[in-house]
């Protein structure tokens, strides 16, 4: 099942709806990379709340999305990792050290907005 990607202002929101097959994950990766260019997005939220399993493949693919979008000038934040899933990831030895995470969609968007504000230095007053 394809993951729907919504455009919200300068951001993309990819909401994973159900258990993902590897094929779905690869397609998500391709779709996000393509849409970042098409919509000139500054940030991406990948919502994994509905994911019951985050194994090494899914984890590697999400990191791939984060790294590739970074190279295209957009920041990815993974939101909604469930408590059991976090527990299993730690046991498995997976970490998202180099990937931004947030508790939920709201926090993720707030994080990206903060990042976006930091980028637009025009409105800043004072400084050197």
């Amino acid at each position, binding site marked *: 099942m394809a993951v729907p990607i919504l455009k919200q202002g300068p951001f993309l929101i990819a909401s994973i709806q159900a*258990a*993902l*097959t*590897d*094929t779905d994950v690869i397609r998500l990766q391709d779709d996000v990379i393509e849409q970042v260019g098409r919509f000139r997005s500054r940030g991406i939220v990948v919502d994994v709340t509905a994911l*019951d*399993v*985050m*194994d*090494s*493949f899914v*984890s*590697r693919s999400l990191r791939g999305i984060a790294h590739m979008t970074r190279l295209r000038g957009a920041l990815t934040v993974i939101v909604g990792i*469930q*408590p*059991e*899933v976090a*527990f*299993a990831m730690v*046991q*498995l*030895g*997976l970490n998202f050290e180099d990937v931004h995470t947030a508790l939920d969609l709201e926090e993720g968007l707030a994080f990206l907005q903060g990042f976006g504000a930091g980028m637009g230095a025009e409105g800043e007053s004072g400084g050197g």
Partner: protein
Amino acid sequence: MADERIIPIRNDDDVVLARSEARDLAKSLGFPSTDLTLLATAISEIARNITTYAGTGEVSLSVERRAGRAGVLVVARDRGPGIADVELALRDGYTSGHGLGLGLPGARRLVDEFELDTEPGRGTTVTLLKWAPKDPST
């Protein structure tokens, strides 16, 4: 072993099916939700090894009973290339494919018992066992 369930593993849809069937079986034995996730994640790793390295194989699920305890027994079998260096395959971070090298050593950490039986040219069998919590009434 009356209710052994065999799931043929041919593609990534079957990997998802295997872990969801295992989750249902474990739930019926009273596994807490964290353990359901650990088991499903371990199965995801070993079933993906089948599609990645052997192409096809199967995952068998059954209930194991020992000394008044019940657990889920998972046997993943394939007739793929086998593993030449078992010690290396169980080492964290080692990968011969395109993964993170966490598949086998990671799966081992997620379950209570783990056994790897493999021979180059003959295939690989990975056996996992995860116990349900002890029934407080016994």
